[in-house]
């Protein structure tokens, strides 16, 4: 009898909650906010996934184990028996060497450490390498737990816990690390160590961890401008102009020379440890050419959902228009100045729709050069660095990192869909700060994680990847809304904001339709063989849909970064 009353009371309470959320009553159960249970429960899932699908990246890393175990340091970046040559920076090579020392005998006998063209291995190798991923991910959990523990007060701890929990359980890491096979968990763990040092104003350690990270995986160079400007401004410069002294003295005293020296020596020391052995053996040039191969195409076989995906789509679209509507030929020709003979060649067109690297990529629209992509990336990165230079606090720093990540992902040359994590990770740290950030965040994670689905194309894993992402989204969609404080001006900002929220949620729900549709295309292709011609269409739908989503979320975030001052002033999260 009493029950309905009780629920209605708490119902009321819940309805009121959003406005009160900053003064939300403490939960009855004094929680310590430990990630231990989350780790254990995710561990069981990862363990079950061990025997599932893994990509060729598995053999890549196996080959690296073999190279570092069997050869002297001088040969590491020279060896090329297998096509999977070592092309990560030295720390990662050392890391592989360290792992190869752990390989037990029965795994060695399984062929784990053989330098061969194509790996011949069985379950023991799979178990061993999967286990190294799971264990190395503890770095991430350590960093996340540290973020919670070092939060100043209870509401901040609670907010951080939810945000950080979403990273600990990230479907991106599950798909890329534990299904596809890579070591991103550890890499992002190091990145978060660096970021938390920045929050705690331990700038020297921040610089240290970031250089370590760069020596593990050089994709993080994309974030380097933000880190550089932040450390320069917050640690090495002190911009107070003293009118009594002359300009030159003032300029010199702007720089905090002691700090600059300390930071510089830390960074140089890290890079020396990483690269010196290779320079000593004279394989420095080999190393560099391995790290920066410039022979790849603009887009990957599966277009990462960025600006170039939309651009390629526009090209394909125009080709169809050109072919089907004769009247359009002349204006198109005049407008884009392309070579019409190329379009007559069906062979060529077909090969380009398969997205094979190195082919002609655009038939109607102008070709994109690496220089252009570089300039665009650089331009948008610089834009985001200016506010950071003016206001060098933690929140600005994370915002700038996010935008640097966005710029590199959206405009970069030969971007992989996996690189979306470089945007999602920093942004998640901010999202618990302000309700306004939730909209671009939801769009980003839904489209970003969703765009990873084609990476795992095997049918057996279909249910796992889709369900896990859905489950993750449901859990964190609701929980973030519970803990994120609502700014006072939110309602004033609101009117249009609420409609925008609806549109965004609609777009995200639309993704379910995309997944269903593309899966049906896959499912029925043996029955209706004509569907096999649409394999590329399938991937294109994913890229374009997710691309539009990610670009929109970028717009939303960019807007808030430049316009909404209230989010960015302050050091806490």
């Amino acid at each position, binding site marked *: 009898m009493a029950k309905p009353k009780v629920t209605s009371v708490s119902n009321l309470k819940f309805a009121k909650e959003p406005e009160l959320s900053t003064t939300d009553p403490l939960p009855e159960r004094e929680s310590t906010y430990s990630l231990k249970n989350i780790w254990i429960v995710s561990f069981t899932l990862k363990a*079950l*996934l061990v025997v599932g699908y893994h990509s060729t990246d598995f053999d890549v890393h196996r080959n690296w184990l073999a190279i570092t175990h069997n050869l002297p340091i001088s040969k590491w970046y020279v060896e090329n028996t297998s096509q999977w040559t070592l092309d990560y920076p030295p720390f990662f090579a050392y890391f592989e060497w360290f792992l190869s020392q752990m390989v037990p005998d029965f795994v060695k006998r399984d062929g784990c450490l053989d330098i061969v063209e194509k790996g011949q291995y069985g379950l023991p190798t799979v178990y061993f390498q999967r286990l190294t991923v799971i264990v190395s991910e503890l770095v991430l959990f350590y960093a996340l737990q540290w973020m919670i523990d070092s939060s100043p007060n209870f509401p901040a701890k609670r907010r951080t816990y939810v945000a950080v929990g979403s990273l600990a359980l990230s479907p991106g890491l599950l798909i890329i690390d534990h299904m596809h096979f890579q070591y991103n968990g550890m890499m992002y763990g190091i990145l978060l160590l660096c970021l938390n040092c920045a929050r705690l104003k331990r700038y020297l350690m921040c610089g240290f961890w970031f250089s370590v990270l760069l020596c593990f995986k050089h994709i993080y160079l994309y974030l380097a401008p933000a880190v550089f400007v932040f450390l320069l401004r917050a640690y090495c410069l002190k911009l107070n102009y003293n009118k009594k002294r002359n300009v030159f003295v003032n300029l010199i005293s702007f720089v905090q020379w002691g700090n600059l020296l300390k930071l510089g020596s830390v960074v140089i020391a890290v890079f020396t440890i990483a690269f010196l052995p290779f320079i000593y053996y004279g394989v420095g040039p080999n190393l560099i050419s391995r790290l920066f191969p410039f022979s790849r195409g603009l887009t990957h076989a599966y277009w990462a959902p960025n600006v170039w995906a939309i651009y390629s789509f526009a090209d394909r679209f125009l080709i169809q228009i050109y072919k089907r509507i004769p009247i359009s030929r002349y204006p198109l020709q005049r407008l884009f100045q392309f070579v019409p003979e190329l379009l007559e060649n069906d062979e060529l067109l077909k090969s380009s729709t398969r997205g094979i690297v190195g082919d002609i990529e655009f038939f109607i629209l102008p070709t994109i050069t690496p220089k252009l992509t570089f300039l665009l990336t650089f331009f948008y990165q610089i834009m985001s660095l200016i506010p950071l230079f003016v206001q060098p606090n933690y929140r600005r720093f994370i915002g700038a990192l996010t935008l640097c990540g966005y710029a590199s992902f959206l405009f970069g040359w030969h971007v992989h869909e996996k690189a979306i994590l470089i945007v999602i990770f920093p942004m998640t740290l901010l999202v618990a700060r302000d309700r306004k950030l939730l909209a671009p965040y939801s769009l980003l994670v839904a489209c970003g994680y969703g765009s990873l689905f084609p990476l795992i194309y095997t049918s*057996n894993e279909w249910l796992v990847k889709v369900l896990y992402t859905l489950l993750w989204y449901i859990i964190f969609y609701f929980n973030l809304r519970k803990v994120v404080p609502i700014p006072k001006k939110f309602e004033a900002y609101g009117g249009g904001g609420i409609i925008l929220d609806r549109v965004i949620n609609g777009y995200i729900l639309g993704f379910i339709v995309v997944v269903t549709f593309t899966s049906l295309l896959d499912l029925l292709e043996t029955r209706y063989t004509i569907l096999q011609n649409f394999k590329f269409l399938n991937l294109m739908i994913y890229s374009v849909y997710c691309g539009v989503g990610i670009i929109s979320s970028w717009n939303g975030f960019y807007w808030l970064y430049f316009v909404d001052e209230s989010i960015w002033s302050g050091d806490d999260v």
Partner: protein
Amino acid sequence: MAKPKKRTSSSKKDTFKEVSNDIPKVSSPKQDPPKSIFKDSPVYDLLHYFEKAPVQWEARYILVLTAVLLRSAVGLGGHSGYHTPPTFGDFEAQRHWMELTINLPISKWYYFDLSYWGLDYPPLTAYHSYLLGMIGSFINGSWFSLDESRGMETDGLRFFMRFMAIASELVLYIPAILTIANILGKKFNINRMDQIIISLVIINQPHLVLIDHGHYQFNSVMLGFFVYSVIDLIKNNLYLASIWFVSCINFKQMGLYYSLFIFFYILSQLKSFSGFILVGLTVAITQFVYLLPFILTKPESVLQIVLRVFPFNRGLFEDKVANFWCTTNVLIKYREIIDAAQLPKLALLATLLAVIPANVYLFFKIRSRPSTKIQGLIYGFSLNSLSFYLFSFQVHEKSILIALIPILLLLLIDHKDIDIIQWINNVGTFSLYPLLKKDELIMQYFVSNFLINWLIGPKILLQKKYSLNTVVVWGTYLLMIVYHVIDATMSPPTRYPDLWVILNIAISFAGFSYFWLWLVYKIYKL
């Protein structure tokens, strides 16, 4: 009830205003009175964000999605008879039934090539296979083409089969458990969060997950029918309950383990002779409807179904199973002492001896004290099915599932027994270990066992009070660990290649017997 409570809470509020502004204390009287029994367990720690009434539906969604996720992740492992031609295993049997039902007329279903996985389950399984076969052959015709598809195990087919096992469970078993948790939760005043947690514990038990989604079978369908039948028995819809129950035994004949008790129970609930006739008629008509397609096409195939479904010409037990006959067979060789034709009778006698006294006792107990009706119902099913597993003829190791489901439902009646109930479920999964080892599901076995036990937490499962139960529980766990260490490190002596399996069934049998006694004791104390 509501009025005095309201008054106390408001008056308390007033006093609190004077004393302090401590927020949590004010809100606590509003909460549901029974505290969660899972307070200290990791599963509560993970789910307590969804404790408030308006967000509990999220917890339910999460529960269902996690259950499916667990099943699909377990499904990445091996299935029975993977890569073992020429006969493969249960997976191939299920696939083959889909193949033959969609390609042959109904009259031939129970006659077709009996030596290669001939259909030997009752009609509902055949219809179910037909339905899935039609869906499958719509997607890919080669999966179920007659004779040519034998032994097929491509990735696409595997995923289709796994998906269908999950879908079948999602349609019947999982909603059934959620419903019964809700109904019994209201009756026994279990707080909403605990209902969800108990459903989670029941749904994610490793034995069912590993057998249905690892080894590959459709036990969840039969068990779903059974749980629905229990639900209607609780609601006192005897006719609907009998329809569910007939469906249950028409899906898998093993459902008959429950039949004796459901007979006693329905008898105890009937007020008049006409009711008895009506229930009888419901059963007969349902059964008739299920057989109708066979009767219309080829009447004598009904007899063939019975012969196929009840193979009395087979052994006393199948393979190695932790029941009375197989375990004592190590010492007494029944086949040498007793004529093979007499064995079924002996088994029947033993089974009846094990259940009839308790059933009669429960019959009178329920009639005299209707308040114990629900407890009696579930205890009765538990004892009956366990006795059938222990003593009846031609038992498979997988049949333990049939006993474990009603035992799990006991959690909803008295959650204080969770330590011993989870213990017997662990023993049950343990007894399946030799089978799972053959299917290369060892990792999945350890992981799923770890998951469920860790979720409930050692504080609840390994209690430190001194009682016979605790001693037995700790002792068995110790023996299991020793067993797994031996199994992993040593190979059995060449003279007795089955020694480890026998060790396994001996431990399991001891556990089952103890639990059987415990059930008898509980029924006596009811």
